């Protein structure tokens, strides 16, 4: 475990499509100011954005927490929401429980969780049905894209 340098928490509101993606944008700006490699920033932004969208689409509220250590970028996205009954199924590319309405808005292609995993060096998901879900992702600073 590297030494923690910086920790930030961004609130995310469920069903608020108007503000959806703002946490990811702020994280991108912060990481850019910190002069991190563009490929790392890109991966972190994709992870933050996809996880943030999941909160917006399914949960009532949640948080995106960014922890920067001298070894890695850690992102934890926790929500209070319906939870995921079958995590293995949810991890399948193309599987989605999005409503038609969400699909019309351009979301719900079933790529969110697989994309998060693909862009993480360490990926973990915890969920309790009717309580909430926590997605954790670690991107190592010395890893390449």
């Amino acid at each position, binding site marked *: 475990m590297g030494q923690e*340098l*910086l920790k930030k928490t961004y609130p995310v509101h469920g069903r608020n499509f108007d503000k959806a*993606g703002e946490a*990811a*944008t702020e994280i*991108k700006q*912060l990481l850019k*100011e*910190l*002069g*991190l490699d*563009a*490929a790392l*920033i*890109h991966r972190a*932004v*994709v992870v933050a*954005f*996809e996880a943030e969208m999941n909160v917006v689409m399914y949960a009532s509220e949640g948080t995106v927490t960014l922890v*920067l250590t*001298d070894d890695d970028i850690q992102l934890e996205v926790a929500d209070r929401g319906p939870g995921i009954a079958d995590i293995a199924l949810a991890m399948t590319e193309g599987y989605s429980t999005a409503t038609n309405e969400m699909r019309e808005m*351009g979301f719900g292609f079933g790529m969110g969780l697989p*994309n998060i995993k693909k862009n993480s060096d360490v990926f973990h998901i915890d969920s309790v049905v009717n309580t909430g879900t926590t997605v954790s992702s670690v991107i190592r*600073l010395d890893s390449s894209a």
Partner: protein
Amino acid sequence: MRICPTKAIRVREGKAQLLPDLCIDCGACLRACPSGAIHATTRSFAEIDKYRYKVALPSPILFGQFPLALTPAQVAAGLGRCGFDVVCDFSAELALVNRAVRDFVDQWHGPYPLLSIWCPVVVRLVQVSYPRMVDQLIPIQAPRELAGRTVKQRYSQELGIHRNEIAAIYITPCQAKTVSIRAPAEGGRSNLDGALGISDVYNDILALARPAEKTAGGPALPSFSCGAEMLRWSTSEAQGRVLSRHRYMSVTGLGNVIQVFNDVEKGKLRNIEYLECYACRGGCANGNLTVDNVYVTLSKIHRLLANLPESDPALEAEVERRYPQEDFSLAAPVRPRGIESQRCDLKERVRWVKRQEALIEALPGLNCGLCGAPTCATFAGDVARGAARLARCVFFSDERLRELRDTYLRRCKPPPDD
């Protein structure tokens, strides 16, 4: 200072300074500068005169700048009389590039969307702020560059002179293209030898467009016909016509482009194949070296287009003939522009960011600009990095207030008596 979209301007001792790493050549400052202190890097006729043969390549926007009573042929004639040997229409190059784009989009397998590179500000923005997206910039020469190559080849053959004796001068709607001619984003050398702003030649063209009125004689210029392809390109959705069967999108205005690029960066908009983007709202007709209003210009261009036939068989034949032989590739791929000054220890940078956040809380948030930075947040960043002292803020220093009075009140008249 505040107009700068990348916050690249600071005012020191009453003068504007530029942080070159942050500048994307958008020219917003040029449009806004109250004292006219910021100039475009256009050429002068004196510089162009040293060439033996001078070719003007007018941006299609030029023809929408004048009263409709002046035909494109008269505008071109006026431009020629300003000091060119010939004025060239480059409809063929535009059509060739359109086809090259279509074929490139067809064979591209991602990442999507591909981005147009005709606007140098967009290219620079990607290099500075979206380095991951440089590979999505479509690697096809801009029509103006292709036209520069064509006219040099053509006239060096026809006249038997060296291509270096021929000046290919672009008549530009914006200063950004002058910068891209001086220093192309991909490196290498431009096929053009410089640019004159539309506003630089506007009055002369008005005066010289109708020769019968004033200037009798003078060298006869080859006749000029402005093709529909030229006029079509002036609209910001020019390529929608060519890419009608593709998933195409057009974006104009730097703020909109940034919003859309942010989405692209997050992995949205992957279903768009080609994004045509321009930093000026409404496209090049709104360039900062144009004269007429963007909407008036576009309306006039539509009127001019209405008088031209839909198709041009001669042009189509030329495109058919030339397309297989033309090389559209860039000299080199466009690479990100590394911001050198940002390379330092991560822990140090974390300290900067934390200090900046603490300073933002401490500053009044009025964005008065008296410190010389455009916003309190920018100033906080400058102070955190050691690039400015907190005492530049008038809220923290009476001395600073006195200094500003000395600098600025000296330029002013005393207030009137009541």
